């Protein structure tokens, strides 16, 4: 019956152990982020944080709101499938504040050739020219309006 008479030390060990468990739980609560495990073994909030980044490209629908004339012209031509920002570059800043952000002028000598210079690795069906032989010295837009490159040529031929 006196078995537990000297059990005080056991109580103390249990107390220390209990404190350890409490400390572990508290530490874990403090260290593991709130949303960890929401969807899987990762911080669920990381998804929303990634989604918060701001777009730099406005997207082709955005331009058509204000530039319906250009969009209408382009839609009828061979460049219909080429989105505005494929040539004009990222313009989200311009689209949200056209008054203060103005797109840079484009140098067609470099722009058009980037897509249209002949290259044996390009699909053969893609229209290509040799810039040294195809009307050298003349800016492309003298004959090809950028938003509808065959606009005038189709009338002649």
């Amino acid at each position: 019956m006196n078995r537990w008479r000297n059990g005080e030390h056991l109580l103390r060990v249990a107390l220390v152990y209990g404190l350890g468990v409490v400390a572990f739980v508290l530490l874990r609560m403090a260290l593991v982020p709130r949303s960890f495990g929401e969807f899987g073994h990762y911080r669920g909030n990381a998804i929303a944080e990634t989604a918060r980044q701001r777009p730099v490209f406005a997207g082709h629908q955005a331009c058509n709101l204000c530039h319906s004339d250009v969009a209408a012209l382009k839609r009828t031509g061979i460049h219909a499938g080429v989105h505005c920002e494929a040539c004009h570059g990222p313009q989200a800043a311009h689209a949200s504040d056209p008054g203060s952000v103005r797109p840079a002028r484009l140098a067609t000598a470099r722009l058009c050739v980037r897509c249209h210079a002949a290259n044996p690795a390009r699909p053969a069906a893609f229209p290509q020219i040799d810039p040294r032989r195809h009307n050298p010295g003349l800016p492309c837009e003298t004959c090809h309006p950028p938003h509808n490159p065959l606009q005038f040529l189709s009338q002649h031929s």
Partner: protein
Amino acid sequence: MNLTRRQCLLLLLPAAAAGWEALQAGAPERAPNYDKTQHWWGMLLDISKCIGCGNCVRACAAENQVPPGYFRTWVERYRVRDEDMPYPQVDSPDGGMHGFPPIPADGMKEFFVPKMCNHCADSPCTQVCPVGATFITPDGVVLVDKEYCLGCRYCIQACPYGCRFFNPVTHTAEKCTLCYHRITKGLTTACCEACPTGARQLVDLKNPNDPIHAFLRTHNVAVLKPYLATGAKVFYNDLDGSVR
């Protein structure tokens, strides 16, 4: 009405609790109408349409502030000799960012192959992360948690496609996010936006009306390294057997 200080404090408690909650949660801005469970994103890369203009590489760098010399997407030029199929010559100057200077034709088969993260459903890269800093989202996009990444580089070694790199500025692993900030807002990715020929197309495999389903049935479509069973979701149309 007469409020004691005690009543006042008690009234403010829920507000304070909500504020604390928001602080703890990092107060992420949630896209209002976007349902993660209704999408399963992938990409279609059409080799027969790629002209190697580099628009996608530049667009990606501009959209995501990719440090110079590193690429989340890049374009390779393959040159294959008839009798040397297994040993193609591959080049990618500046990731193809400024296009490819033509090499005079010498009887080799030539074509461009855009490369990017394959957003694998069973990705090796997410499995090796020791802290759960990289993962696949419920809508099928493999992301890196920049806040949580230790920078141990395991995932960079694990990716069989070489699609990850170590960002020298943030000292964390980095990769294509499939423009997660755009697709959750109803926009397409920056690379698709800039692609002039439709060689890149964002696809949603959970959307029964997405033309990808008909496309996959009617074309010779492949994924890279299918024998690794990574569940890659970047589909290549017209993929040559020499591409690795």
